C-alpha cells in the first residue's frame, strides 16, 4: 500500500541489500545476540557453539576477559571479576543494598557507583560495554559485515537513569542503537508472531536480577502494552542469596573470605538449579580453611526460605492488572520469560495467581533476544511481509519538585510513549530571575522517596513581581523511554530554554573520549570508521530524499526542488572525498534543506490515510 512507502522512502526503488541488524538481550546473568536470517530469528552462537555469554567481566592488568573465562576466575579473582553488573547500572552506592557483602571495591561517585579494578576505576557503563562489544564482534563475524544497528533490551521497569546508562554502554561498544526495547515486549513479539495470539496476555519476566510484569493487548498486528510493573532489584540472584544465607546458617559459618564466599555462592546457585528437576539438592564443599560443608536442601526448605521473594513478584502483578483495568479472568495467557521462571516455586505461584497453566513453549532464556532481533530487522528498514506496531509505555511517573519537597507528577506511569506533557510554574519572589528545576521519577509523594534524575537552573527570567512569570516546563519521553526536559519563560515573549539529559547520562564528548581510550581502536581506525559511517549515512539520505522527490515532487515549493538538488550534489562530492566532517556537515545541510518538505510529506500521508478512512465510511 502506497502509504507504507511514505514511511519507508528508500523502499520503493530497487530491492535492497539486507541490512545487518541484531537484537541483544543484555542480561544480569547471561547475555545473547540474535538476528533474522532468511526470515527466521536465530540466536548467534560463539565459536564453541554456545549461545549464552555469561555477563561476567574480568579486568586484568593487561586486558579484559568476558564470559566463561571470566566466570571461571570468579572465585580466584573476585575483586576484579564483575558479575551481575546490570544491577549497578544507573545506581548510586546507596542504592545497592548488599554492597557490603560483595567483593568489589566500590567507589562512591555522584550519579553512578564505580568499581576500582586492577585496570583502573570502571563504571558499570564501561563494564556493560565490554559485554556488548563481545556480542557485537560475535555478530559481525557470524554475519560477515558491519551492523547497521542493534535493538538492546532493558527491563520494562528500568527507570530513566538505567535506560540512559544502557544506551551509553551500547554506544560505547560501537553499536548504533535502533531502539531500547522492553524485555517483556520483546518476548511478546516473539511469542505473539509465533502463535498468532490475540487477546490480553501477561508476560511474567523473572531474570537474574530484575523482575517485570507487563499486560499486553494483542490484536491484528498491534502489540499494545496496557500496563507494566516490576522490581528492578529482584531476580534469581536473590534466590541464590537466600540459599547462601541458609548454608551459612545451617553450617554455622561466618566471617568467610572472598574466595570461600564466592565458592558457596556458586554452590547455592547450583542447588537452586538442581531443584528445578529434583526433590533435593546436595550442597558439598571444602573451604580454604579445610572446613567441610555437607548439606541437603529440600524443595520444602527452599520454598519456605524464598516465600517472601515469590510474593514480591505477585504484588506488582496485581498492581499492573489494576492499572490495566483488568481482572485475572480477562487474561488469556501468561507467557513465562527469564531463566528464573524455571523454578517450580515460581511456576506454581504464577499458575495459582492467574488460575491457569503458564505458557512455557518458548525457551525463557532466548525469547527476549529473538523478539529483539525480529524488531531490529524491521527497524533497520528490512522489508517485512506483515507489518506490526508496538505501543509501549513508561513504567514510572515523571515529575518535578515543588514547594515543601513534594512531587508534582507531569507524566503518569503507563502513559503510551512517545509522550509529551507541559506544566506551568511561576516565580514566588519579586524580581526573581532564576528558577531551579528538579526532575524526579517515581510514584511517591515526597521528592526524597523518588529517584532524582536531573537538576538544572533556568536563568534570565526578566524581573517581575512574584507570580507574574510563566515558566512552562515540558517533558518529552521518546520511543526509547528516555526523557528530555525543556523550560521556557513565556509571559514576556522572552524565551530562554534549556534541554537536559538526566545527570546519570554520559555526554557525547565523554563517550568519544572513552571510545578513543579503549584499546580496540587506534586513531586511524577511528577516522576510517567515522568516514565509513558518515558515507553510509550520507548515501542513505540521498537515496531517501530522491525517493521522496520522485514520489511527492508535487509537494515541493517553488525553487525548493532546485535547492535540494544542489545540496544532494554537494553531499555526493563530500562522500567522494575523505573528510568525515565534511560529509556530516553536508548531511546536516541537506537535512535542513528538506525540513519543511519532509514535514509536508508527513502531513500529506496522514491526511491521505484519513481521506481513505472517510471513503470507507461512505462505502459502508
Amino acid at each position, binding site marked *: 500500500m502506497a502509504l507504507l512507502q511514505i514511511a519507508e522512502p*528508500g523502499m520503493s526503488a530497487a530491492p535492497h541489500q539486507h541490512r545487518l541488524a541484531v537484537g541483544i538481550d543484555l542480561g544480569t546473568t547471561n547475555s545473547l545476540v540474535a538476528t533474522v536470517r532468511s526470515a527466521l530469528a536465530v540466536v548467534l552462537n560463539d565459536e564453541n557453539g554456545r549461545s549464552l555469554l555469561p555477563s561476567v567481566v574480568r579486568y586484568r592488568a593487561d586486558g579484559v576477559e568476558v564470559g566463561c573465562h571470566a566466570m571461571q576466575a570468579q572465585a580466584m579473582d573476585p575483586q576484579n571479576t564483575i558479575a551481575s553488573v546490570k544491577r549497578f547500572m544507573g545506581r548510586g552506592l546507596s542504592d545497592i543494598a548488599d554492597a557490603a557483602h560483595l567483593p568489589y571495591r566500590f567507589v562512591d561517585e555522584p550519579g553512578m557507583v564505580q568499581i576500582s579494578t586492577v585496570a583502573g576505576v570502571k563504571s558499570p557503563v564501561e563494564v556493560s560495554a565490554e559485554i556488548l562489544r563481545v556480542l557485537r564482534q560475535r555478530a559481525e563475524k557470524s554475519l560477515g559485515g558491519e551492523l547497521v544497528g542493534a535493538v538492546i533490551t532493558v527491563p520494562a521497569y528500568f527507570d530513566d537513569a538505567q535506560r540512559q546508562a544502557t544506551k551509553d554502554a551500547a554506544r560505547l561498544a560501537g553499536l548504533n542503537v535502533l531502539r531500547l526495547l522492553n524485555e517483556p515486549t520483546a518476548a511478546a513479539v516473539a511469542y505473539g508472531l509465533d502463535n498468532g495470539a490475540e487477546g490480553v496476555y501477561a508476560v511474567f519476566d523473572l531474570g537474574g536480577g530484575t523482575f517485570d510484569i507487563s499486560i499486553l493487548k494483542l490484536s491484528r498486528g498491534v502489540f499494545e502494552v496496557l500496563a507494566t510493573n516490576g522490581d528492578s532489584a529482584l531476580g534469581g540472584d536473590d534466590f541464590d542469596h537466600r540459599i547462601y544465607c541458609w548454608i551459612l546458617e545451617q553450617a554455622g559459618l561466618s566471617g568467610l573470605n572472598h574466595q570461600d564466599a564466592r565458592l558457596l555462592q556458586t554452590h547455592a546457585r547450583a542447588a537452586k538449579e538442581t531443584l528445578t528437576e529434583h526433590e533435593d539438592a546436595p550442597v558439598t564443599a571444602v573451604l580454604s580453611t579445610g572446613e567441610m560443608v555437607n548439606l541437603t536442601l529440600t524443595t520444602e526448605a527452599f520454598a519456605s526460605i524464598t516465600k517472601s521473594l515469590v510474593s514480591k513478584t505477585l*504484588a506488582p502483578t496485581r498492581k499492573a492488572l489494576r492499572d490495566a483495568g483488568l481482572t485475572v479472568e480477562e487474561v488469556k495467557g501468561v507467557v513465562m520469560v527469564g531463566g528464573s521462571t524455571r523454578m517450580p516455586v515460581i511456576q506454581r505461584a504464577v499458575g495459582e495467581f492467574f488460575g491457569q497453566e503458564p505458557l512455557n513453549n518458548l525457551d525463557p532464556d532466548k525469547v527476549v533476544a529473538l523478539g529483539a532481533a525480529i524488531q531490529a530487522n524491521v527497524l533497520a528498514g528490512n522489508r517485512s511481509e506483515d507489518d506490526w506496531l508496538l505501543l509501549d509505555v513508561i513504567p514510572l511517573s515523571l515529575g518535578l519538585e515543588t514547594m515543601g519537597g513534594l512531587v508534582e507528577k507531569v507524566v503518569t506511569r503507563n502513559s503510551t510513549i*512517545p509522550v509529551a506533557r507541559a506544566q506551568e510554574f511561576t516565580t514566588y519572589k519579586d524580581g526573581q530571575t532564576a528558577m531551579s528545576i528538579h526532575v524526579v521519577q517515581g510514584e511517591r509523594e515526597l521528592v526524597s522517596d523518588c529517584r532524582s534524575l536531573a537538576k538544572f537552573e533556568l536563568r534570565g527570567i526578566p524581573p517581575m513581581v512574584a507570580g507574574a512569570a510563566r515558566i512552562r516546563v515540558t517533558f518529552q519521553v521518546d520511543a526509547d523511554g528516555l526523557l528530555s526536559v525543556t523550560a521556557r519563560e513565556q509571559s514576556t515573549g522572552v524565551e530562554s530554554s534549556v534541554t537536559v539529559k538526566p545527570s546519570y547520562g554520559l555526554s557525547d564528548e565523554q563517550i568519544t573520549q572513552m571510545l578513543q581510550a579503549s584499546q580496540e581502536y587506534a586513531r586511524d581506525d577511528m577516522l576510517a570508521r567515522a568516514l565509513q559511517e558518515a558515507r553510509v*549515512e550520507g548515501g*542513505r539520505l540521498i537515496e531517501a530524499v530522491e525517493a521522496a522527490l520522485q514520489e511527492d515532487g508535487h509537494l515541493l515549493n517553488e525553487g525548493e526542488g532546485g535547492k535540494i538538488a544542489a545540496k544532494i550534489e554537494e553531499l555526493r562530492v563530500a562522500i567522494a572525498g575523505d573528510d568525515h566532517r565534511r560529509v556530516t556537515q553536508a548531511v546536516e545541510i541537506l*537535512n535542513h534543506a528538506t525540513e519543511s518538505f519532509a514535514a509536508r510529506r508527513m502531513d500529506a500521508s*496522514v491526511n491521505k490515510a*484519513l481521506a481513505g478512512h472517510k471513503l470507507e465510511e461512505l462505502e459502508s
Partner: protein
Amino acid sequence: MHFDFSKNHFELFGLPSAFHIDMERLDQAYREIQTLVHPDKFAHLGEQEKRLSMQWATHANEAYQTLKKPLSRARYLLHLQGVDTEEESNTAMPAEFLMAQMEWREAIMEAKEAQDVADMEQLHHRLRSEMREQHQELVRLLDDQADYQGASGLVRKLKFMEKLGEEIDAALELMEA
C-alpha cells in the same frame, strides 16, 4: 514547525465531535495513524524524520488519550465550545453531592482502618459504576441538549469522583504492599 495541527482531535481520527463516540473506530483510526507516524517506522532514517515522527506520534497519543477517557473527552468538547470547566476555581457543589462525598470518604476510611481489601475493592467497583451512570448523563447534556453549563458542572463532579477513585487505588496499593 510545519504541522497540520489545525485539526481538532475528533477530526484527526475522522470522528464526529460528540461525547458519545464509537470506541472501536477511535481505536482503529488511532492505530492507523500510529502505523504511519510511529518512530519505529523511521528508526532507519535521518534525524529529521525521527524528530518529525516523534512529534506526530506524541500528538496522536495525546489526542487518543484525551478522547479515550470520558472525563477528558467531555472537558475537551467543552473547551472546543469555549466553555471553561473551572475545575480549579469553582468549588461550589450542591449540598446533596457534598454529603455523598463525605459518606464515600468515611467508607474509605473505615475500609482503610479495617485493612479490608475485599471491602475496598467493593468500593472501587461501586464508584466505577456510579461514574458510568454519570457518563450517560453527559451524553444527554452534551449531545442531546447542548447544555454546556450543566455538563461543566457534571465534569466538576466527576473530577471529585476521580479523585476518590485515586484514593481507593492508593489505599489498595498500600494494603497489598
